[in-house]
């Protein structure tokens, strides 16, 4: 591994990550590592019923001042969450239940004791009187007129229903090929390595509420804490220390956050809550849970014409602040044409309330579902026509010469070569060799299948896109404060929140590129509202585009000033200077940046007349096209499936992907590999089923299957590099793409293995039971038809 710049400088160098030293030595500082004298632990009393009236909470007589209900935390301002659309129904979500519980795991009371174990002992002794109501657990059934309601006053269980009509979908009824399929991604948890956590206390010296929060974006959370608690923002400081993954699950304000902050205002000592894994599976952000009932239409020659049907998003019992989960429905609709020249659409998307934990974002947001749906449908059309699926894709996919291309649903696909990505994946996985192996059969009775899935990943989208999504807070820019110290070292404060992405390294590489110094002398800081500039945090594959652009812009401004001072020292024209290797080079002499930095900070007498001292600047950045840029790629996977047991083994996995310019290719590979691990989780393992009473059936890792190292194949990654035209350095975000395609690619591979009997695999995860049952159904249908 390199620790030196590559041929093209620091951009493109696979530097070892700065942050890994502390993490590999166990010296990270996560929220449970934060030591605050006198802290007491919170355990929550949670609802054991999915839907009930809360009649009474009986506190143990010997626990005065230690058990808190909503009334004890008052006043709390419950904020409306969801998109800013009048049609989106309000689902008031108090931090502790207010007369009604709507999912198993909802917080009812908070118990505060010196240790968590004691707090749990106390929580066990709090008596809760619930009057059970009918539970709504199926989003499709919930949309029937006679369904019981999650919210009594709502006319239906939909938070919102929307329709997308493009082209002339009425024309599709006459299409020669029309296939209707029901596809489903089941419900998951986000399963960050570190769970959520919050620690809060009143700092009497600074006269402010300090809230340590394991979050993807502290500045936005401060808005919510301030408004909900009725404190001015300057009295609320949010600190995110090391954050051990989030994947979307730490980017909403959660009831525990508010409850613990409110407790800190009531109590004379610090309080904290550290989520345990059962709470995580029960009551953290849930995700996926999409159902598609779609018809795809095509011509006999394989031309894909249109998609019609219904999309149901099971959004759970409450919308989470700020934006709820309406974007699941809107993004699923808008990504359902994939990269294809499909021009006719009629989609009804329903965001449905049920008695399950609230839904939030998770790596890929909606696109794993949309990609699963369209890529399964494309394979079904290929099977119907007897075509090789990858060839049908080649026929319908947007070509390089057609880019930029506006899809029927209004996404502007920007740059790249989609066919090249398909071809590379096809060749690398060696399709002819697999077809040959399939024809020969396996000695152990297993079946071999190969599957492809193409994805696009919108990233770097800003104001225009989030206005379309009707966000309450529009993450339309990022900011960076670049500050050079007297010895030439640099500290950069950013508003994004590294939680595993390697920002301390990649952002330092960008600044090093602009400032001509070694990234080892550049520290990247984030995660404290008291010191960082305003920013929105890390999510939506946005950080390298936005924060990278802001760091580059601020560093560039600083570099200009350094050159001007350098030119003054060198008695040269600034136009004749350049910055490199820690020096400002003039035509005949050079001066170190450290000398310039000392002058700028500590020797104003040496500066050019009229120049302000300091090398310290803040810049904000948004790409010139805030509709976003699209990374893309093809996943190709080979599986071996046992038809009896239904066990699927991944034999080979190839990715060809293009995320534009790579700042640190090693970090890119890590993002791809990590995303695929989670995508494999969606495809084969992870699921939170609920029974008819709304009881979740996977609340520990004994029941919730997360793929671990033995389940993850070595992924062979090929990079295409087509720089984006509208972002700094030509970068595209790529944090989510790895998680988007695996469910589609793996399901297509399993379907390919049983192509001869026509078995369908349209529901994730493809558990051994689901696979075996699909094979059995197809075999029975085949023998019945004979």
């Amino acid at each position: 591994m390199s620790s030196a710049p590559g041929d093209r400088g620091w951009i493109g160098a696979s530097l070892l990550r700065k942050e890994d030293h502390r993490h590999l030595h166990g010296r990270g500082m996560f929220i449970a590592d934060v030591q605050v004298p006198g802290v007491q632990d919170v355990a929550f009393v949670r609802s054991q019923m999915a839907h009930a009236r809360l009649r009474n909470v009986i506190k143990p007589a010997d626990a005065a001042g230690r058990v808190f209900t909503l009334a004890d935390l008052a006043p709390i301002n419950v904020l409306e969450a969801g998109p800013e659309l009048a049609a989106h129904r309000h689902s008031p979500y108090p931090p502790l239940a207010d007369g009604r519980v709507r999912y198993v795991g909802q917080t009812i009371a908070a118990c505060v004791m010196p240790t968590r174990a004691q707090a749990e002992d106390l929580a066990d002794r709090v008596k809760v009187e619930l009057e059970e109501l009918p539970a709504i657990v199926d989003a499709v059934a919930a949309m029937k007129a006679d369904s019981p309601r999650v919210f009594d006053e709502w006319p239906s269980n939909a938070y919102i229903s929307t329709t997308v009509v493009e082209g002339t979908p009425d024309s599709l009824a006459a299409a020669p090929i029309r296939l209707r399929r029901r596809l489903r991604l089941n419900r998951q948890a986000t399963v960050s390595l570190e769970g959520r956590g919050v620690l809060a206390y009143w700092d009497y010296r600074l006269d402010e509420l300090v809230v340590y929060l394991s979050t993807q974006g502290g500045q936005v959370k401060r808005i919510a804490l301030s408004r909900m608690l009725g404190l001015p923002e300057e009295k609320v400081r949010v600190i995110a220390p090391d954050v051990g993954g989030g994947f979307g699950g730490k980017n909403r304000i959660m009831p525990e956050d508010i409850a613990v902050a409110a407790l800190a205002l009531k109590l004379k000592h610090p309080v904290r809550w550290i989520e345990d894994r059962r709470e995580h599976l029960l009551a953290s952000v849930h995700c996926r849970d999409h159902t598609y009932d779609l018809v795809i239409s095509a011509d006999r020659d394989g031309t894909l014409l249109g998609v019609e049907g219904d999309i149901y998003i099971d959004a759970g019992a409450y919308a989470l602040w700020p934006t709820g989960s309406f974007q699941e429905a809107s993004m699923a609709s808008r990504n359902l044409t994939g990269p294809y020249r499909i021009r006719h659409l009629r989609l009804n998307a329903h965001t449905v309330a049920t008695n399950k934990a609230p839904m939030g974002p998770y790596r890929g947001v909606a696109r794993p579902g949309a990609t699963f749906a369209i890529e399964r449908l494309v394979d079904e059309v290929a099977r119907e026509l007897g075509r090789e699926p990858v060839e049908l894709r080649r026929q319908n996919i947007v070509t390089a010469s057609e880019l930029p291309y506006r899809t029927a649903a209004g996404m502007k696909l920007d740059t790249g070569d989609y066919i090249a990505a398909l071809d590379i994946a096809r060749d690398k996985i060696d399709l002819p060799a697999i077809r040959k192996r399939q024809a020969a059969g396996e000695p152990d009775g297993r079946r071999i299948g190969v599957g492809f899935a193409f994805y696009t990943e919108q990233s770097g989208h800003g104001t225009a896109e989030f206005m379309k999504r009707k966000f309450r807070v529009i993450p339309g820019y990022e900011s960076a404060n670049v500050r050079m110290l007297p010895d030439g070292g640099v500290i950069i404060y950013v508003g994004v929140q590294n939680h595993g992405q390697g920002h301390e390294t990649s952002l330092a590489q960008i600044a090093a590129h602009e400032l001509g110094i070694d990234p080892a002398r550049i520290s990247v800081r984030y995660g404290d509202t008291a010191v960082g500039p305003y920013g929105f945090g890390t999510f939506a594959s946005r950080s390298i585009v936005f924060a990278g652009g802001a760091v580059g812009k601020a560093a560039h401004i600083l570099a200009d000033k350094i050159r001007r001072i350098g030119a003054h020292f060198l008695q040269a024209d600034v136009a004749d200077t350049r910055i490199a290797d820690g020096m400002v080079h003039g035509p005949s002499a050079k001066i170190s940046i450290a000398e310039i930095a000392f002058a700028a900070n500590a020797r104003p007498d040496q500066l050019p007349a009229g120049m302000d001292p300091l090398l310290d600047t803040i810049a904000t950045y948004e790409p010139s096209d805030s509709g976003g840029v699209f990374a893309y790629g093809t996943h190709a996977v080979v599986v071996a499936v046992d038809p009896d047991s239904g066990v699927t083994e991944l034999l080979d996995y190839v990715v060809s992907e293009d995320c534009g310019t790579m700042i640190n290719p090693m970090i890119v590979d890590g993002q791809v590999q990590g995303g695929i691990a989670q995508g494999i989780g969606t495809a084969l393992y992870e699921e939170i089923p609920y029974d008819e009473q709304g009881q979740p059936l996977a609340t520990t890792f004994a029941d919730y299957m997360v793929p671990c190292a033995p389940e993850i194949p070595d992924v062979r990654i090929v990079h295409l590099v087509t720089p984006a035209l509208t972002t700094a350095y030509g970068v595209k975000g790529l944090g989510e793409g790895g998680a988007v395609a695996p469910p589609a690619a793996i399901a297509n591979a399993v379907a390919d293995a049983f192509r001869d009997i026509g078995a369908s695999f349209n529901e994730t995860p493809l558990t051994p039971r689901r696979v075996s049952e699909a094979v059995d159904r197809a075999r029975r249908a085949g023998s019945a038809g004979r």
Partner: protein
Amino acid sequence: MKPAPFDYVKPKSVAEVSAALGAEGANAAAIAGGQSLLPMLSLRVALPDLLVDIGGLDELKQVSATADTIYIGALTTHAAIEDGRLPDDCNGLMRMVASKISYRAVRNHGTIGGSVALADPAADWPGCLMALGAQVRVSGRATVRRQPVADFVQGQYSTTLAADEIILGFDVPRPDPGTRWGFSKVVRKSGAFANSIAFAVAQGRGGPVSVVLAAAAPRPCALPTVAERIGTGKDSEDDLRSAIVADIAAHAPQDDPYLVRLHISTVLRALREMQGR
């Protein structure tokens, strides 16, 4: 997920253990490697008043061999067996089984005695020891007794252990030199409890065959019809499939067609592996 309060003792002798476990009115649990009990305590599913830590009993860590038998102390860890610390591991079967139990971190602590004492229907050792014809040595306040593992395990989380008893170890008959075996297991993922485990052991060349299926019923089931058919000419795949179905049905009614297919698959794989050796 923190355990409810409990008391803790770490006795120095088996007699002290039996006294603690068997005390009048005791709600006690013995803990060895703790790989099942600790999560159950944290989830407050198990709520003992007293934990009796048997980890200090060196006599339970012994491993020895005679001409006919290997003796495996109850506190022998899965990792020790995986690493080949037994004088004889049944031509590699026990080593293979050990290596497929959960993760190495679990295997470092989890013990063979703990696995059999808990008698989880999806555990590996009860079925494996049954297939090998092993006996368990049990000690209580008054006596030491021996019993075939096949009789010791009564059902789901149920054994013949009395309140004051613990497992001392296992006597496993040394296999004939030509002994062949097959082992097949389906787990949802590495580290998860199994959905189906099949063991097939053929003693010597042409000797008796033992086939055991675990995770299919409250306790591991012997599949005698299947075993008898091996090598008789009535052992085509179709013959074996019907024999497997009949044998499983004798142990527990199977109303789930998927599970029947699953168990057929693991048993057939174990048999093929045995026959291929």
